[in-house]
């Protein structure tokens, strides 16, 4: 649910009283035409608010919290759970960790241990995050709370997309930090969501070799399935083009 243009104008006036639309667009990196169009349609995307907040050194999560649908984002953040933190580590980073644990001297050649974790989101961030906080009934509750059909919700997860209001609704339904979903969806950074620096690395370090290996194995299995399905679809489409295209 994008934000109403009226509320956005009021917020923008409070943030940058003298700036024109062109100034705001230039500073925030939002295309001027995009911004103008969103204002004309009366619906401003959350990403626009995030971009402008960053340009004016305001915390984007707090900025979103000043809009009615996201009111509760303004509250002091609940720290992320261990599972959430681990879910936002890329599969390649998990594999790096396994290698550096089993062969401490091999790998990077820099001799300074494994490379730092890449920033979220990663290729399956959204699905891994929802899986990490799902008690088995979560998808059902989100669907009931938002009115989004379960298959549409699942489709977003599979496509590694999550609309901001669905991300927040998911957090609410799971009782976890409200900004976590926005991190997984790539709308805000982990620092902006109030995750302590190094929290993901610490979570990774706290996993036993067994836990880490099982998790990486699950990720690889899921990745392999997705890749095989894509390859199958690709081959099938090509056969169709060859014969009927």
């Amino acid at each position, binding site marked *: 649910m994008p934000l109403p243009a009226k509320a956005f104008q009021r917020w923008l006036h409070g943030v940058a009283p003298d700036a024109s639309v062109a100034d705001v667009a230039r500073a925030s990196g939002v295309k001027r035409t995009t911004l103008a169009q969103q204002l004309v349609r009366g619906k401003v995307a959350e990403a626009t608010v995030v971009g402008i907040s960053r340009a004016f050194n305001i915390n984007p999560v707090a900025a979103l919290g000043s809009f009615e649908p996201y009111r509760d984002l303004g509250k002091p953040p609940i720290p992320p759970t261990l599972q959430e933190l681990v879910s936002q580590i890329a599969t390649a980073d998990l594999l790096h960790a396994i290698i550096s644990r089993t062969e401490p001297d091999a790998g990077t050649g820099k001799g300074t241990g494994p490379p730092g974790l890449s920033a979220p989101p990663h290729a399956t961030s959204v699905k891994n995050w929802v899986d990490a906080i799902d008690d088995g009934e979560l998808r059902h509750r989100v669907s009931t709370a938002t009115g989004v059909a379960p298959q549409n919700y699942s489709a977003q997860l599979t496509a590694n997309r999550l609309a901001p209001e669905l991300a927040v609704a998911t957090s609410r339904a799971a009782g976890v930090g409200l900004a976590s979903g926005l991190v997984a969806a790539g709308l805000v950074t982990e620092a902006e969501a109030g995750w302590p620096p190094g929290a993901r690395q610490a979570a990774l370090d706290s996993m036993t070799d067994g836990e880490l290996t099982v998790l990486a194995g699950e990720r690889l299995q899921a990745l392999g399935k997705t890749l095989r*399905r894509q390859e199958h*679809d*690709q081959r*099938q*489409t*090509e*056969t*169709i*083009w*060859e*014969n*009927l*295209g």
Partner: protein
Amino acid sequence: MSEILPWITLVVCAGAALARLPSAVRGVNPTLFFIFLLATAAGILSIEQFYVAIDGALGGINIAHVVLRLIVFATIYLIAVRVTKGFGAPDAHRMIAGRPGLAMLGIFSAALVTVFLLMEPAASSVRFRDAGAASARNEALLPYYWAAARGYLAYVSLALLPALLRSVKESLPPLVRTGAALMAAGAVATVAGLCLEFAPPQILVVAPAVNNGAVVFYIAGLVLVWLARVKAASRGGHGTSSTER
């Protein structure tokens, strides 16, 4: 009403053939152009004025009608070969182009020609409609003639139907799935066309709509699948662009 239906069918087939001409000249899937061309020829022979003129040139004893039915056999055979290859249905392919399939084609073609030869020559009449009135023997043989003419089409359509329905459900480009659905509708209409030959006269009035609908559905389905490739190529998606081939 039933006078305008063949014209609609002809326009659809001729339009598809014309639109496909440039691809055929470039050597891209010329079979597809050939299918549309055959369908156009069949469309022409289904219109009274053209039929009478062409049959007149062939002796005025309805040889043109046998030619028309054999053209329709060839058209559906080629469609079925392309579709079963494109949609990856080896079993259906065997039932149509394998030994059993060719045997069916031979049996139905032989039956068609034999029944025609057994009938007494009748004056040219489009859709063979006055042939039964020529003599009692003709009237008795006419149902067998139509059973042979429509039987092969229904056989091929039934063999195609499972593959088409499966493709509708698979994760293929939306236009391909719509095309497969249209062809499935064409297959159902073709089978219905055979059943209508044995139907009571009251519901026989829908026969022209069903039979013309079958052709239009098949051709429109093929065009949609082709358009899906054009779309994919112009977006640089899967499939090579047709100019590269």
